[in-house]
């Protein structure tokens, strides 16, 4: 499959702060590519440059053969964008919003209206399309926000954290929509800080942190970097000293890494069962009460932890 997107050393400064530090990656036509990273990693900044909203400080990207810096108008025609923040006219209905945005993408007449009908069906709002957006729930707004990005059937769709702050049902619906769209042939660049979403959706994942792409590949390739390890997560009380516990756990045999975040200590080990008893007794020694323990198979979370020493979410 040819590349629909090629990013070359893309960088962005805000004043003297560098938000994106020269990243490079490709996306193949037809795949779902996830950009996974914590808050402030530079995901939105990257999407903003790729969608021609911000001019890169340096570097370039080629989308369907067009440079984002030299031929932004051609790029705009190819891409659809679902911004992280809901960008709709609250006093217009869902249908009116879709019609207006369709017009901005050059659609008109009957083809516009039939396209709007299709999209309303797709986002599951056909029966509520005549209500003003301001009367919608957060999840419904998110779906309209996505619908706007689909109207002109873009070859490449950018979705910037499209599931932030919504209920599990709406999230499920959105993830299914993304998969459907991809089946119909749309290439998707999906950003998220939820490891599970990247894991469920993506063919390939780029992990971004502090404006740098620290890992890139298929999920298998990435988890192999961590080796065959398990992740053990201890949930402890609020007033307990997680850092001290993590430090003392590092002394146990077979504990490869132990890191503390608030009320949590995550441990990486080749085999979780082997260290469980030792971990619990160490905690008892220090008088720390463990509320619960999770054991996780190798995953992207572990990769992030391995690479940065921090959990993806704090």
């Amino acid at each position, binding site marked *: 499959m040819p590349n629909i997107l090629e990013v070359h050393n893309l960088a962005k400064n805000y004043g003297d702060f560098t938000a994106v530090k020269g990243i490079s990656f490709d996306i193949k036509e037809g795949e779902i590519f996830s950009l996974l990273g914590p808050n402030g990693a530079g995901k939105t900044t990257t999407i903003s440059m790729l969608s021609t909203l*911000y001019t890169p400080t340096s570097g370039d990207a080629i989308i369907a053969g067009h440079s984002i810096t030299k031929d932004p108008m051609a790029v705009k*025609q190819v891409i659809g964008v679902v*911004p992280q923040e809901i*960008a*709709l006219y609250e006093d217009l209905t869902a249908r009116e919003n879709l019609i*207006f945005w369709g017009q*901005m993408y050059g659609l008109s007449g009957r083809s516009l209206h039939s396209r709007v009908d299709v999209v309303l069906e797709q986002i599951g709002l056909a029966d509520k399309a005549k209500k003003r957006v301001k009367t919608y729930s957060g999840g419904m707004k998110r779906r309209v926000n996505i619908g*706007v990005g689909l109207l002109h059937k873009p070859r490449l769709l950018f979705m910037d954290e499209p599931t932030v702050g919504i209920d599990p049902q709406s999230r499920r619906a959105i993830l299914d929509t993304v998969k459907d769209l991809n089946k119909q042939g749309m290439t998707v660049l999906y950003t998220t800080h939820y490891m599970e979403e990247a894991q469920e959706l993506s063919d390939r994942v780029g992990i971004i942190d502090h404006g740098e792409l620290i890992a890139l590949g298929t999920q298998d390739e990435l988890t192999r970097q961590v080796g065959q390890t398990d992740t053990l997560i201890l949930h402890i009380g609020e007033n307990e000293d997680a850092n001290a516990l993590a430090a003392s756990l590092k002394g146990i045999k077979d504990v490869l890494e132990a890191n503390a975040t608030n009320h949590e200590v995550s441990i990486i080990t080749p085999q979780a069962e082997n260290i469980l008893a030792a971990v619990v007794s160490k905690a008892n020694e220090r008088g720390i009460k463990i509320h619960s323990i999770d054991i996780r198979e190798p995953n992207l979370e572990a990769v992030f932890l391995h690479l940065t020493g921090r959990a993806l979410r704090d």
Partner: protein
Amino acid sequence: MRKLLLIGLKDLTLMFRDRAALTFMLLAPFLLTIGMGFVTGRFSGNSSGISDIPVVIVNLDQGELGNALEDVFFSEDLADLLEPTASDSPEAARQLIDSDQASAAVIIPEGFTRSIIPAQGTMFSPNAVAPQAVQIEVYANPSRPTGAGIVKAIVDEFVSRVEEGRVSGMTSILGLLQSGLLNPQNAESEARALFKNVEETESTAITLKTDKEGAAATEFDLLAYFAPGMALMFLMFTVSYGGRSILAERAQGTLPRLMISPTHTAQVLGGKVLGIFFMGVAQVGILILASTVFFQVKWGDPLGIIVLILAAVFGAAGWGMLITALARTPAQVASTGSAVMLIFGILGGSFINLEVMPSFIRLISNITPNKWGLDGFTTLALGGTLKNLTEPVTALLIMGAVLFGVAVLIFNRSGIMQK
């Protein structure tokens, strides 16, 4: 071009769905106009415009000019506006006013005509005394200011025409005499012919402005001043509301979304400006229509009105764009816009007629679209047409163009998307 229009229409739709904004744009100026109307006595008496003002005419003169004035008051053209009665006695007439049975009495004193047109043979005789002007008295009823005001205005108008005729008649005849083109024998008949002329133009002059029922109201109706004054003041609210929507769209993410769509920046900005323009025109148009329907305000030449609305909205929109370009947040635009609205409202004569203001305020008032707009609307209400609007329309267009230019420069420097 199509996208420009679509963006503008979208903004117009949003305006009509914003109840709070509509209250400010339409209801507030409408109510304030009514308020002004009550304060100024516009609604005392008949609510459907002014008509049947009782007036007593006492003609003691019985010369040509006195009769001409009496004819004006009894003319068919003013029949709806006035309800004149004739009386022989000034005392009886004053009595009627004092007992509130009429709005005003017009007392034309004996010798009024003679004081202006001397008797045969006396005019240019060497020992002629300069004729002493005899004053017409308007005895007004203080509890009926509007009616009395109208009567007084009709008399003033008549007298000033006579004065004009007298001065120009005198000087031109003196000029002719001096240059030897006219001999004193002919001079007198010549003068009579001239004054005859005055009488005739006199009655037509007033007739011209009083075409229909309540029509003298065209000239004297204070609402024809306050209605556009309020409309223009709240037009400043609308343009800053429109400007604010640019910053609001930036904050709510729809402006970036527009920029991401295959739409040029110029189209986006142009569309927003067109939106402001649409909103302003809709607002002023609706207010004018409403005051025509509800208060019978006569605005004058429709073509002139349309051109003036377009020019005034353009000039005001320039201010809206400048405020927007200078502000950082929608809230700043809103607060600055409201302040500018009030200041311009006062400076521009929306509350107090500029003629009573000190000269430096009148000078500053030239920067307000209110002043020029109000000039134009007053001209039209007084019977002027599009041809008489050159000055205010030019001023408004220049104002708009200059302000837009400055706003675009500022936007270019800071970037429409940058914070």
